[in-house]
């Protein structure tokens, strides 16, 4: 059975990362927001920027990848060519 993708807040909680640790991983992947802005994203119900959401989701998913965990944080509106390659259900 396929589990429903996690939201960012649930993914962060399960990862055990602090906001600062997630921010470091987000920076490594090319994210450009400040730590304060990242906190705001995570504390609000909806992340206003799809790309930032996807960078954060990838940062969290790499934590689960390191731990061989099946959890997956969902992406938002991934580029169609990418979803065709991967078969993600949440692509446009």
């Amino acid at each position, binding site marked *: 059975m396929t589990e429903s993708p996690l939201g960012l807040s649930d993914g962060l909680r399960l990862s055990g990362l602090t906001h600062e640790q997630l921010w470091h991983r987000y920076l490594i992947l090319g994210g450009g927001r400040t730590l304060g802005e990242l906190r705001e994203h995570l504390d609000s119900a909806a992340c206003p920027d*799809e790309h930032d959401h*996807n960078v954060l989701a990838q940062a969290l998913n790499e934590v689960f990848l390191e731990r061989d965990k099946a959890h997956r944080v969902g992406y938002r509106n991934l580029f169609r060519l990418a979803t065709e*390659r991967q078969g993600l259900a949440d692509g446009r």
Partner: protein
Amino acid sequence: MSRAQKGASSDAAWVASKGPVFTDRTTAQAETRPDPDRLAALARQMGAESHLDAVWDRVVQACVTQIDGADHAGITLLTGDSVSTPAASDELVRIIDRHQYATGEGPCLTAAIDHEAVVRVADLTLDTRWPKFSAAVVGLGVRSMLAFQLYTDSDTIGGLNIYARTPDAFSDDSVHTGTLLAAHAAVAVAAASHSEHLRTALASRDTIGQAKGILMERYKITADQAFDLLIAASQQTHRKLKDIASDLAATGELTVG
């Protein structure tokens, strides 16, 4: 004989073969510590280091020279669920730490994992708090220990561990000096760790930027769309995105499994 006992026996033989490791502290060290000026200078030096390894080495050396009674010193580092010893004054410390990590108990772990700011052990042969650890290291020649939690306001980094060959080797002054060193070390390590994270981040961002540029040119897509392609490749191959990007930047090929 249990595996732990065999390991302890083997370690004891190693210790016996390394007589020079247990050289007496120099008279100069014993007479001048704790030295406030020296401690202040060490704090500034640690704060100026931008590489973690250099900070660890300075901390360990400072402990051996500045803490009254100290014969050996080492660091216990917490990284996620794992523990390691990134710096030690000598091999004996690494051996002792391995026993702590193998038995899952000991003064360093109590300080680092159980968040006890200072753990003081007057005599390991009499202390009953860590029976498996004590049994494993009793033959190694260490009798007294101090373990300090290394922490900042936001994080526990690990532990700073001091060892002595004699029982009751540490005074209240030893604890005071160790507490100061641990506090300075934690701040310096946090700063150096931050610098290393930033260096790593910059290098990875550059690689990912190159990979996105290749995909943008190849498929006539935006930077965000190129990043999505890298996400897809990462998820499909169960590899980290920066590794996918590195391969793409090096070979021009996007690995998708």
